[in-house]
């Protein structure tokens, strides 16, 4: 089956240290004031003493049906055969259409390059056999990435074992980040 790169994010393992954001900025020269990935807080929920707060890390969902790619007038925004959604800078005119079209606000106009900018799945690292910078750096092992179509990948094993949810499924983008809220005591072995 074709490769379908995606993420599994285990919210119960996120401690909001924001190391993923720092790692991404360092790896990808993301200008200060913009971000390719994030950690959102649910705010404090419930009544004292039963209170909880959920942290939900995120980045581009590398959607199955990405509206950002559909609307791009020059073909700069593309979905690669392995599912990774990228911007080919030389074709981008900076019209920002893709940025308004992304329901997850995962893109931003890069003030330095004048192009649309977003998570690239660190494909430059994948080519060297490394994980994306945010995944490698994640302290709680909350972030996992891999081929969702390969049953032996960590992400597939996690999805098989735990209930998952996707964000804004009703919008029809087919997001490729699967969230697990349950406690995951052990991360399975995988490729």
């Amino acid at each position, binding site marked *: 089956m074709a490769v379908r790169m995606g993420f599994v994010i285990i919210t119960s393992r996120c401690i909001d240290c924001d190391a993923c954001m720092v790692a991404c900025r360092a790896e990808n020269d993301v200008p200060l004031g913009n971000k390719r990935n994030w950690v959102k807080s649910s705010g404090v929920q419930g009544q004292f003493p039963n209170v909880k707060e959920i942290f939900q890390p995120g980045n581009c969902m590398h959607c199955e049906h990405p509206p950002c790619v559909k*609307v791009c007038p020059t*073909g700069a925004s593309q979905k690669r055969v392995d599912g990774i959604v990228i911007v080919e800078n030389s074709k981008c005119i900076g019209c*920002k259409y893709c940025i308004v*079209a992304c329901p997850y606000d995962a893109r931003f106009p890069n003030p330095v390059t*004048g192009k649309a900018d977003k998570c690239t799945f660190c494909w430059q690292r994948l080519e060297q056999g490394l994980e994306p910078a945010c995944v490698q750096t994640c302290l709680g092992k909350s972030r996992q990435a891999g081929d969702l179509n390969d049953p032996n990948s960590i992400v597939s094993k996690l999805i098989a074992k735990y209930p998952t949810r996707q964000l804004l499924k*009703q*919008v029809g983008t087919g997001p490729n980040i699967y969230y697990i809220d349950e406690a995951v005591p052990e991360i399975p072995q995988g490729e």
Partner: protein
Amino acid sequence: MELTWGLMIVIYLFTAGLSAGAMVTSNFAFLYGGQEFERVSRFGAYISPFPISLGLGVLLLDLGSPFNFYRLFLTLQVRSPMSYGSWAILFFTFLSVIYLYLWLPENYQVLGLRNPQTWKKRLAKFMPVLSVGVASYTGVLLNAAVRPLWTAPLLPVLFLVSALSTGVASVILIAALSPWQRARHRELHLLTKADAILIILECLIILTMIVMGRTNSLSVSSAFSNLLIGPFAWIFWLLIVGLGLIIPLALELMELKDKIPVKWALPVTISSSFLVLFGGFFVRFVITYAGQWSGWFN
């Protein structure tokens, strides 16, 4: 929530509609109005190329990589409204300049086309198609960027009717302002009637959109709340509904019934047509801004 698309895009959407509307007004006046509506066709032809050229210039300034803009015209991405829309607008602008040229007084037509009248007729028959495309494209453009407010299926229709209305109003305004060729009563009467009908149509479309939006999913209906009672309410009610629709409609209806004293006729014509343009601008403004303001709920 910061805004990615700002005033430049609003101007672009507005001017594209205005040019298309003025073009259609000119074409119809020429094809069906005959000699009597000659000035209407002429004014429409003189207006048409300019707003859209301004819009294109402004759009270029808004690009992150303006020197890369030629990339737009190296390809046709059939799924991207901005791609086929840019081609349509390119052709429209080009043809509208030719159309204007054909309407110049004969001694200015230095290129010496053999039978300008035939060309004029041909263009006048073709341009309405292209104009409808250009005017409604601005709505399709927003449709494709899946935001709750912008998914409204009637958006292209709203922009189209608003475009025609602003187009007619611009011709009325220029006709009323031009000192040397004060348009005759009959011309103005018909244009005003057309504009009044368009305004009523626009009101009905807005009403339908609100009903459809409010009965839609939570995300969509709350996006419409932003318009109706939220941060954009004063723009919507005061600038669009009040100043842009109700007041000009009332003024136009009074003009049609000859309720306006003669010495007030000119200022009233000028202000009602100006208000239509004003309202048309804020329709684009509010949709562009409120559309980005509201996102999806999980």
